[in-house]
């Protein structure tokens, strides 16, 4: 049973986020070890295993990046253990610019609002990438999967960048 089947939804990048949490709750009620508290050790063990799967499936399905990565893995492309690097030079240049901006942001007159605008810019890029990703994953064109994999690699950089911005924000707004 793959994660989509477990959640009783079609194998697709497009997931109805209003239904997913409800299904999750329903699966929790069926599989949580507490529901087997008076059962035998074996019942509890089976519940722990199934429930772990439910938790993992939910965390994979609810985030678009991990969902896309999982979809590709179902199609035989494993991005988890790869060593491949990005060779899109335009993207790499942009990355470097952003990183420099972040490193020097404390020297700005208003570092917090500078951070905010950087965050906004990256969020916009992520949004655009996710739309591209959706189109690629739903298309039948040649190389769609290869191109989707490239976008996923870029998105990983972007999300990492976002968490670094958050860390910086924490440092700057400490009270």
């Amino acid at each position, binding site marked *: 049973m793959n994660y989509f089947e477990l959640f009783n939804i079609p194998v697709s990048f497009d997931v109805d986020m209003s239904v997913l949490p409800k299904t999750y709750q*329903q699966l929790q009620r069926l599989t949580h070890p*507490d529901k087997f*508290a*008076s*059962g*035998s050790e074996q*019942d509890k063990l089976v519940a722990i295993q*199934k429930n772990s*799967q439910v938790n993992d499936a939910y965390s994979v399905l609810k985030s678009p990046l991990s969902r896309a990565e999982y979809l590709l893995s179902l199609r035989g492309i494993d991005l988890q253990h790869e060593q491949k690097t990005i060779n899109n030079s335009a993207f790499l240049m942009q990355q470097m610019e952003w990183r420099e901006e972040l490193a020097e942001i404390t020297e700005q007159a208003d570092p917090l609002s500078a951070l905010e605008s950087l965050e906004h810019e990256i969020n916009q890029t992520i949004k655009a990438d996710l739309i591209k990703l959706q189109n690629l994953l739903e298309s039948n064109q040649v190389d769609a999967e290869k191109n989707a994999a490239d976008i996923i690699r870029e998105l990983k950089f972007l999300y990492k960048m976002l968490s670094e911005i958050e860390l910086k924000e924490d440092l700057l707004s400490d*009270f």
Partner: protein
Amino acid sequence: MALLQISEPGQSAAPHQRKLAVGIDLGTTNSLVASVRSGEALTLADSQGRHLLPSVVRYLADSVVIGQEAKQQASSDPTNTIVSVKRFLGRSVQDIEAAYPNLPYQFTNSLSPVMTVASGNVNPVQVSAQILKELKKRAQQTLGDELQGAVVTVPAYFDDAQRQGTKDAAALAGLKVLRLLNEPTAAAVAYGLDSGQEGIIAVYDLGGGTFDISILRLSKGVFEVLATGGDSALGGDDFDALLVEFIRQKSELIGTLSKSLHRVLLDKAKEAKEALSEQRSYNVDFEDDTGKHHSVTVSLEHFETLIEPLVKNTLRACRRALKDAQLQKSQVIEVVMVGGSTRVPLVCKQVGDFFERTPLTSIDPDRVVAIGAAIQADILVGNKPDSDMLLLDVLPLSLGIETMGGLTEKVIQRNTTIPVSKAQEFTTFKDGQTAMMVHVVQGERELVKDCRSLAKFTLHGIPPMAAGAAHIRVTFQVDADGLLNVSAMEKSTGVQAQIQVKPSYGLEDSEIADMLKASMDNAQGDMQARMLKEQQVEAARVQENLQGALDADGEALLQPSEIQAIEAGITKLSELAKGTDKDAIKAAIEQVDKLSETFAQKRMDQSIKSAFSGQSVDRI
């Protein structure tokens, strides 16, 4: 045709009889036990009407005193009176002495905290077990029957070693642990927030020695912890320590305080702290070791200036937890206050200011956790089969392994909902290598030395191959109690590698068994009887559940031959369970488990399938 089961008189419970289960708050300063009686969860008092049991254990040469009576002797007999032992669970002596430099205890070595007391040596698990035993005794006397199980609470921020220590202590006290429950979750349950309310709630828990902040989402009886944070070494005791230092400076006492004077000042500091919840200043009077009298006035302003940095630290953790949950302050609909230290007015005010709403304080902050735990225990033991309450907790600290150069590689991220299972692959780096060491750590920092060392595993029995050819899959399984289990397998050959667990600070299974033996007054006999009874109870459980499952789903999910095999196993088990050979019963249970494993999995999948098909019918 199903046969009627006829039990021997007195051996089977009447169908409507309630099973006794309790909730236990094993606190740093005080501990409590609560139970649901006539539909209401109440804390249980001792024979003198006292609900709080001070978490203090005094060891005399041939007896043990627990609670209030022990607490009263803490100043006069500091080395034999163990106070706030919870701070030592799952910790090394080095950690403990760094955090609490003025402890009066004599640690026997520099690694695990074994203390020398009048009756010999004791460790934190044994001291905690004494407190649990006392509560168990109180519950059995009040409720008039044997306990079927207990929910024991732990701070959400407790790591694996601290949780394991708590569970070991319960085992040592002869309690069946239904679940280790996070204190904030228990508090949310106690407020009955499940009834109708939906939304985000924050639980701010400042106890004697620990601080937790948890962000929960409530929806239709499901309490889902979204994020948790805090500090397992920050609490009201730190307020006291700051006050002691303040008093010491004001009274110009130079150098290290004697153990007994330190204890006297600690008691005075606690009095001052409590008084300052209601008045603007407090006078501390005491005599030093030379008999000289001192009088120090502590004003509310002094006190608040002293503790403000600590309160700010807690708010920083609140902000971080909200961030982890990806929520704004304004989305929080309720703030629940837990722990005696939330009685300090500055704490309540600052928390209220931070969340911009008045915190909930209607349930006694000392009792709220035990009450919530009792409600959960009542459900888990099976007294409320129709309850739809479900508590989903998270892993408080990331789990990782040591990689080259002393770096940590995270295997499971913090705030992941538990139970959770993650696998990691390793390979050999030498030709013919047959063993490999894995160092498991818990924490957020990049360097292994900055994280908490949980255990070192040695994988033996890897088939000899060329370097890099063996693929060892190590699975980290965290259960609903937040406890880690590790298993390993070489993929190409399917060889199961054996794992030797060497807990870094906790106790090994054999040590627990030894302590259990030592704790039995009549040694061997009792121990054997208890272990036999445990196996018989489990055997009965297996028989009953499995027969029920076979009757319900056997024909639909299994071949006739499979049903026959399982039934034969059950028959054999029930024969053996009548005897007294506990090892044979255990082996028969394992045999039946093996026979029915696939069946159990199929039933689980079946229940999911039928739930979904029911739903699609509803939709039409």
